[in-house]
Each structure stands twice: as structure tokens, then as C-alpha cells.
């Protein structure tokens, strides 16, 4: 277990390096760039006209149901990945395959139901 995390050493080094470069770049940028704000410059960009009201326009978020579906299929992927690496090993036979058929069958039924309910189309 001790050596297992050694593999992650380079990952951490690169995270530090990336964060350092980004932070250093932003810091250097702060020192070098000009800073002359005017009131017009600081308005929200609206293609030339003055912005009306708050910055956030009220809009209908389409496809929010996709977020739920995403969770379902992300969990599905979590099950599929380890299954894919072991299912061909000794001791895992057609039963393992059958179980995955059942599992994916449920998910596919869910997706088909969502499609039937017209969740997947533009409203």
C-alpha cells in the first residue's frame, strides 16, 4: 500500500507545477498590465447597448433533466469499468455477463422511458 501512492507523486508534482505557473502568470500579469477602469468599461457586455436590469436574465434551462440522467449513467460507468477489466478472468463466466445484461437492461429501459416521455427532445 505504501508504494501504491508513489505512482501519484508525479501527479502531485505536476499539480504543484501547473498551479505555480498559473499563479505566477496571474501575479506577473497583475504587475505588468495597465489598469484604467472607466464606468463604461465595467458594464456587462451586451453588444453595445446598455444592459437592462440584473446581469442574470431569466431563462428556461432546457435539458436540466439530463443532469439526473447523467448521474444514473455516471454510476453505470463506475460499475462498468471494473467489470470490464475482470469479466474475462478465471472464475467469471457467463453468469457475470448475464448480470451485466440485466443491469444494462434496466438502464436502457430507463433511457427508453425518458425518450418516450420526450425528455430527450427540445421542448
Amino acid at each position, binding site marked *: 500500500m505504501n508504494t501504491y501512492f508513489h505512482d501519484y507523486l508525479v*501527479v502531485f508534482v505536476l499539480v504543484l507545477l501547473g498551479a505555480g505557473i498559473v499563479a505566477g502568470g496571474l501575479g506577473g500579469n497583475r504587475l505588468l498590465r495597465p489598469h484604467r477602469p472607466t464606468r463604461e468599461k465595467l458594464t456587462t457586455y451586451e453588444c453595445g447597448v446598455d444592459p437592462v436590469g440584473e446581469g442574470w436574465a431569466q431563462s428556461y434551462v432546457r435539458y436540466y433533466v439530463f443532469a439526473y440522467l447523467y448521474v444514473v449513467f455516471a454510476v453505470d460507468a463506475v460499475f462498468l469499468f471494473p467489470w470490464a477489466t475482470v469479466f474475462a478472468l478465471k472464475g467469471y463466466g457467463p453468469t457475470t455477463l448475464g448480470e451485466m445484461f440485466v443491469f444494462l437492461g434496466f438502464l436502457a429501459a430507463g433511457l427508453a422511458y425518458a425518450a418516450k416521455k420526450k425528455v430527450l427532445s427540445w421542448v
Partner: protein
Amino acid sequence: MKCTTEGIAGFGCDPWWLIGGKALVIFVFLVLTVLLSMWVERRVIGRMQLRIGPNRCGPFGLLQGLADGVKLALKEDIVPAGVDKVVFWLAPVVSAVPAFISFIIIPFGPTVSIFGHQTQLQGTDLPVAVLLVLAMSSMGIYGIVLAGWSSMSPYSLLGGLRSSAQMISYEIAMSLSFVAVFMFAGSMSTSQIVAGQQHIWYGVLLLPSFLIYIITMMGESNRIPFDLPEGEGELVGGFHTEYSSLKFAMFFLAEYINLATLSALATTLFLGGWHAPPPITTIWAGANSGWWPVLWFLIKIWAFIFFFIWLRGSLPRVRYDQLMKLGWKVLMPISLGWILLVATIRTASREGLNQTQLLIYGGITIAVVLVGSFAWDLVATSGRQVDPYAEPERATAAEPAQGGFPVPPLDLPHYHGVLPETAARKEVSSGTH
């Protein structure tokens, strides 16, 4: 501390200078690739559009990327008055930092000797290496969503929401396309996946998975034909409308690093990684040893980057509903079916069925499915008669039913080159207006 030099566990045993050196080399490689691919993209697109492209900075304009970077970094950073300052600053950092990390598990070549130390040409390898790439690309989405959210601008917000919907949809199809590769490699570690492709590339063996990956990687990279989060014609700059100076450059950097990472991942998983292309190995046995594999790897990566650029030069942007339809109704069901098919064939061949038996059973299954679908079709359509001359249903502007928001109808007549009669053309008289 025990260190083995065999298999995946060998990576933590490098001396500290080698670990630091690898991280530094990967970082420099990524920055150079970004600078170069910006130049290549602009020159190639220029050529495709019958213009010259940038040719002033340095020989052939090679330093154009560097000049642009310096220019961006020295520009004034405008932070609009209404933004959420902390999140506005955090978003480009969250977008750029994870982009660097994915490349660490990409194998550049086999074991070589560096200053007398045997090591693999790869940052590191993990038992879950490919999952790391997926996790990092998800982190990048946070940057985009937060940028759209904190900008307090309708364009940015819409761009951020669009990109989150698009990227999570395509990420699922992408991860499903990896599953078939994991089945054949029996591992999620990139070095073992590359080792598994010594004789035949998974791109050939698992062609449907490869094609799905290519489509989804277009969706993941936010580029044409799927560049809706920043569709210039409709959302100005999308999620980065309000960004300027180095913060904008961070998003730009992240996008181009992702381009390189997706290309490298495609090379590693489907095109044999650093293995030499087939005709070379038959003539020259030494092609897969020493430092040569780095050359094959680079050739494959750049072929992919060129492919990205080529698509950008030749395809139009798809409509948003078409994009989501493709992802959820085509790519995902096909991926799921393909995974089950591959798994069934693998299990059947392992259980000792030979090819003739396999073909017979496969034929029976296909016949059953076909007969079933015909029967379903007969039952389902017998009840209703379809009048081919009936007027197709038009989406009426029933606003209240659509949540009370003004929604443009999907199927406007002018999409089909038909002008509605009500919009008779009025001639504009000349004169002073």
C-alpha cells in the same frame, strides 16, 4: 520502502530528479504543443480558406503564438462591476490546472535509460489511469460553468449552461467507448493498454468504439462542429464573453491542451500508442525500441490534431437540439449495445465455442431480433393509418404550454427554403430614412 521495477508499481521508484524532470518535460511539451498547434491551425485553416495565414512573426510566422500570448498577458484586465469576484478569478484557474494533469499518464515510449537509470517514458501510471483523464476533464467543466455563472451576463450564463449539458452528455458516451478497450486490455492503466496493442490496434479491432470516441471527443473539446458553448453568432463569446487579458488566455490554453490530450488519448487507446505503424515493424525490427517510439507517438498525435483542424475547416456548426439528440439517442444506445455484443463474443469464445458455432448462434440471435421487430412493427402500425398527404404538424406557438417563456418554434418554414405567405416582401423605397 520496497521498490519493484516491474509493471505499474515501478513509477514511484524513480529518483526525485527524474520525477521532477518528467513533470517539467511534460509541462514544456504541452506549452510547446499549444504554441505550435495554434500556428499550425491558423496556417492550415488559412490554406483551406485560400488565404496565407500569419507569416510575419519569425520564420513562417512560427512565433505568432508566442506573440499572441505576450500581447494577451500585457492587456488590461477588465473585471465588470457586477461579477462575483472570487469565482470570476477562480474559474480560469480551475479550467487550466486540471488540463495539465491528464497528460501525465500518456505513455510516450517504452523503457529507456536516462543517465544510467532505467525508466519508462511516461509521467506515471496508475491502475485507474484513464479514469484520471475523465476526472480531470470533468474538473475542466467546473471552470466553464463557474465562468458563465460568475460573469453575471446572460450570454455567459447561457454559454456555461450549454457547455455543461453538452460535456456531461458526451462524456458518458466517451467513457462507454472506453469500456470495450478495457475488456480487451484487462486493465485501465495506459501502459498495459499500449502493451496489449502490440499485434493489432484497438482502433481496428473495435472500430465502432473508435468512431464513437472520435465523435465524442469533438463534443468534449468544444470545437466545431460542436462548439455551441461559444457559438459566436448567437452567444458572442459564450462563457468567456467577459474575460480579458491573461484570464482569457487561460481558457484558451486549457482548450488547446485539451486538444492535445484528447489526441494523445486517442493514440494511446486506439492507435497503438507508441508502437510503430504496421509496415515499418515488418521491415525494421528495431522500430519499437529505444527513443524511436517517441517519433511514432508524435506523428500519430499530430495526425489527430490535423484531423481536428481539418474538421474545423470543413464542417458547419450543428444545431443544439441536434447535438443532444445525437449524444443521447444515437451514441449512447449504440455504445451500450456494442459493449454487450463485444462482451458476449468474448465470453462465448472463452467458453470454447468455435467460429462456426459463434456464427450460427449470432445468426439465430439476429434473426430473432429481426422477426421480433417486424412483429412489433405490424402490431404497432396496424391500428393507425398514416395519410401521406396530410399536412405535417407544425409547432404552434403555444407559449403557456412551454413554460410561459418565448420559445422559437423548432421547424420554421424558412429552414426549408419556404417563405410564409404572411411575410410578403415589402419593397423598401429609396430616399432618406
